[in-house]
C-alpha cells in the first residue's frame, strides 16, 4: 500500500483547527496525527493545543554555543598573551583580567548567536526543498493542512476537509 499526501487549504484558522481536532478524533486507519503538518502565513502557537506539545531544542544549541564561545575566547586570548610576553605593557600584568573578560563577553554573545542560528537550521530542517504539495496561498492568507496516510485513508481525509469548508484539496502520490 502506497503512502499518499494531501494538502487542504482553509480560509480561517479556526476551521483548520477544527479539522485537525476531527482528524485526531476520527482515528483513521493508516494515519498518525504526528504526520500532520500545519502550514500558515503567520505563527499560530495556539495550534499546539490540538497538535500536542512538540519540543523545541534550539535553546540547547544556544547554551552550548554561548558557553563554548566564552570559554574559547578566554583561553585563546590568555594563551595568546602568555605566549607573546615580549608585549609587556607597563603598569599591567601580561594577562590582565578586565580586558579579557570584555572579550570573553563579546565572544560569548557571538558564539551564542551563531550556534543558535545553526540550531535553528538543524531543528527547523532548513534549508530544504519545498515539498511537492505547496501552495503559494499559504504565504498569503490561507492555512494549509498537509497529511500523510495510506491510500485507504484518503477518502476519510477528504470527508473531514470538505466538512470544514476546505477551499481546495491537492493530492499527490508520494514516492
Amino acid at each position, binding site marked *: 500500500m502506497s503512502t499518499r499526501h494531501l494538502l487542504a487549504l482553509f480560509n480561517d484558522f479556526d476551521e483548520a483547527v477544527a479539522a485537525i481536532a476531527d482528524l485526531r478524533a476520527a482515528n483513521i486507519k493508516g494515519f498518525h496525527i504526528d504526520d500532520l503538518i500545519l502550514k500558515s502565513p503567520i505563527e499560530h502557537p495556539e495550534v499546539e493545543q490540538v497538535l500536542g506539545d512538540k519540543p523545541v531544542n534550539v535553546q540547547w544549541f544556544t547554551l552550548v554555543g554561548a558557553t563554548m564561545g566564552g570559554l574559547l575566547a578566554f*583561553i585563546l586570548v*590568555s594563551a595568546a598573551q602568555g*605566549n607573546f*610576553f615580549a608585549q609587556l605593557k*607597563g*603598569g599591567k*600584568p601580561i*594577562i590582565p583580567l578586565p580586558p579579557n573578560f570584555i572579550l570573553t563577553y563579546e565572544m560569548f554573545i557571538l558564539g551564542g548567536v551563531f550556534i543558535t542560528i545553526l540550531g535553528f537550521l538543524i531543528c527547523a530542517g532548513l534549508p530544504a526543498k519545498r515539498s511537492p504539495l505547496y501552495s503559494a496561498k499559504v504565504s498569503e492568507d490561507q492555512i494549509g493542512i498537509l497529511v500523510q496516510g495510506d491510500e485507504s485513508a484518503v477518502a476519510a481525509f477528504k470527508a473531514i476537509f470538505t466538512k470544514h469548508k476546505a477551499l481546495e484539496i491537492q493530492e499527490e502520490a508520494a514516492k
Partner: protein
Amino acid sequence: MSITNLLENWSDFRHQHPSEDRPHLEYKWAMSIDLDSCTGCNACSVACYAENNLPVVGKEKFAHGHSHHWMRIERYWDNDGREFADQGAQFLPMLCQHCESAPCETVCPVGATNHTADGLNSQVYNRCVGSRYCNANCPYKVRYFNWYDYPTTDNVWPAPMEQQLNPDVTVRGKGVMEKCTFCVQRLTVAKSDARTEGRLVLDGEVQTACQQVCPTGAITFGNLVDPLAKVGKQWMQQQVDLNKDKQAKDAAEDAVKLRGYRILEELRTYPSVMYLEQLRESAI
C-alpha cells in the same frame, strides 16, 4: 600546551609592573635634566635630528603641527604682569618620558609599543598601523606621526644631506608613529659590547645624542640599577623614587626643598625622566 603554559606560569603572568618586589634586573635606563643648566640652545634637538634621521618638514608643515622633534625645547614665559619676563623665557627640554606605566602602551591596538626588559618604552615601526591612539593617550604629547611620506618628499633631506642619514636607524615611511627611543641603537651596541666582555655596561659608556651635545651638561643619562651611575645618585639625592606616584618628600611639610620632580607624576605614568627645577633669582 598553551594551557599548561598558562597554569604553570600564572603568577608570572599576573605580575604587575612597576613594583618593588621585582625590580629591573640589569638595566633600567633613566635620565635627569637640570633645568638650571639648560640655556635653551636647541643643540639637543639638532643632535636628535641628526642621530635619529628625523625628517625636516619645512616651515609650512611645521606651522601645521607636523613637526618631528623627538627632543623639543619648550619655552615658557613668566611675565608676572610685565611686558617682558625679567629673566627671559624658561626652557624645558621635552622628550619621551619612557614611563614605567606608559598610557600609550596599553591602548595600542596592535601592540606596536611595549615595555622592554631594560625599561624603555619601545616603538615597533613595522607593526604600527597608525591608529594614533598612543598619541591621543600620551599626556606629554611626545609622539610624532608621519603625516606624509617624508623619505620621498622633496627637501626633507636635500642632496647631499641624505648622505648623513644614520645607517643604524630606519627611515620611517608615512603612517607610522615615532618618538624618542633614548637612542636605543647606541644602547644596543653598548650592551652587546659589554656582554662580549662578560660585564654590564659601565656608567658613561653610553650617551644619548642629546646628552652628548649638551654644552652645559644639563642632561644625565644612565642605568638606574647601577649603584655607581651618576643618574641614580641624582635620583637618590633628590629623593625621587621611580615606583611612586607621590614622592614622600612632597608630603613632608618641613622637608628640605629639593629640586627634583617628574612631570605629571600624579597621572601614575611613573616617568623615567627627572627634571631639576630651575632656580630663578626672583624665587630666592
